């Protein structure tokens, strides 16, 4: 670094150094308020909503056992009725918070529910799995964009992860180490990518315990440039994935 560089650096640092500690404290106070104090208040509010849901569930159980006329499916339907049909979520798209309306969808054989951004996506029920894909078909130049939800009733999450690790390694050039995650779902996450071009295929596979000795496998497919778009939207929708026991 020569004399000019030293001089430029000194000038800039001298002109930006006077930050009163009160300002730093003030900024932190605002951040703290926004992120943590508000969060605590929201959590308190959320907790207060648990009671009516519990009462509703208890009522459902009472009706079921007292009348003995409703089928198991009806009971499941009753539980699903406890979820609001439509709600607004806030998702982060390319660093900006976006308010999105999502709609309740019932998964295959009523085993799970998920909320879908129906302005952009649709759930297509299949023989063995459900596929969430773009409402409007993408042009041919784009790789597949989809999120498949499939249940394996007799394969535990651990067994499933081992199989998927092998499958992904043969399909993608780079597969990262499997990790345990708690968000967007509680389970395991596998990630594969082939290349670093805008259209390089990317996959995220989540393995979730179905609580009956089996697994749900959720396979997201998109392309590198869509990571902050479709990737982020899949992530937000998946946060609303709930298994119906």
């Amino acid at each position: 670094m020569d004399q000019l560089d030293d001089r430029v650096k000194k000038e800039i640092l001298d002109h930006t150094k006077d930050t009163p500690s009160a300002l730093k404290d003030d900024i932190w106070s605002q951040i703290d308020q926004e992120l943590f104090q508000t969060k605590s208040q929201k959590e308190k509010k959320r907790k207060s909503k648990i009671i009516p849901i519990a009462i509703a569930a208890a009522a459902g159980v009472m009706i079921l056992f007292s009348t003995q006329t409703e089928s198991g499916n009806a009971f499941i339907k009753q539980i699903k009725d406890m979820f609001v049909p439509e709600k607004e979520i806030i998702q982060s798209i390319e660093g900006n918070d976006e308010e999105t309306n999502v709609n309740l969808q019932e998964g295959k054989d009523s085993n799970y529910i998920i909320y879908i951004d129906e302005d952009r996506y649709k759930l297509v029920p299949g023989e063995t799995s459900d596929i969430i894909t773009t409402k409007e078909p993408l042009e041919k130049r784009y790789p597949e964009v989809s999120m498949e939800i499939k249940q394996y009733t007799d394969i535990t999450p651990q067994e499933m992860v081992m199989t998927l690790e092998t499958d992904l390694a043969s399909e993608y050039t780079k597969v990262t180490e499997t990790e345990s995650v708690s968000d967007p779902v509680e389970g395991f996450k596998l990630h594969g990518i082939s290349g670093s071009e805008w259209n390089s295929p990317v996959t995220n596979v989540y393995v979730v315990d179905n609580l009956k000795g089996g697994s749900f496998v959720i396979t997201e497919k998109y392309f590198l440039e869509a990571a902050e778009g479709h990737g982020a939207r899949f992530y937000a929708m998946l946060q609303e994935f709930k298994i119906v026991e």
Partner: protein
Amino acid sequence: MLWTKLFENSQGIYSEGSEKAYMNDDILEDIRNGSRDAFKQFYDMYENYAIRTAKAITRNDEHAKDAVQEAFIRVYRNISSYNSTLPFDAWFYRILVNECYRILSKEKKNTPIDTSTMENKEQLREHSKENLSDLYSMIQNMADIYRIPILLKYIKGFSEKEIATILDLNQNTVKSRLFNGRNLLKTQLELLEMEGS
């Protein structure tokens, strides 16, 4: 923006201020888990240079405060989308710089600064002679395509590669802008000194 793409092939240790203070995986993990203490620790490590950078870019203490505040909030809310195998500082400073741009454009009711389309406008801004009475004023009167890379280089010591990542530019573009910006400063200084002698 596509962070996974931006940070591919990036290497190195990214430290804030000193080598003793840098973002480590434990703090990141705790922040991901919602720890207020970990986030405060991160804030204490990064606020100094974040405020310096924002003050220099926005040229306004109040705007700098807003930009820094919003940048930290965005980092917390988007931490789940950050890939920890990639350099954290570039991710953080990209968010901060974008916040500065956003506040500046909102304040001035101008379109956001798009450095990628300004390649052919390589002149210093129109300026009065008194604005160039010291080196800092000269820097602050430069066009943003030179000013921002220079500020990032000299405040935080970012490399050309890191600046390219933060500003989403080709590394050669950054190299060229730093070179030309530095030459412009040198010329201005020489002129000033000739006039003064």
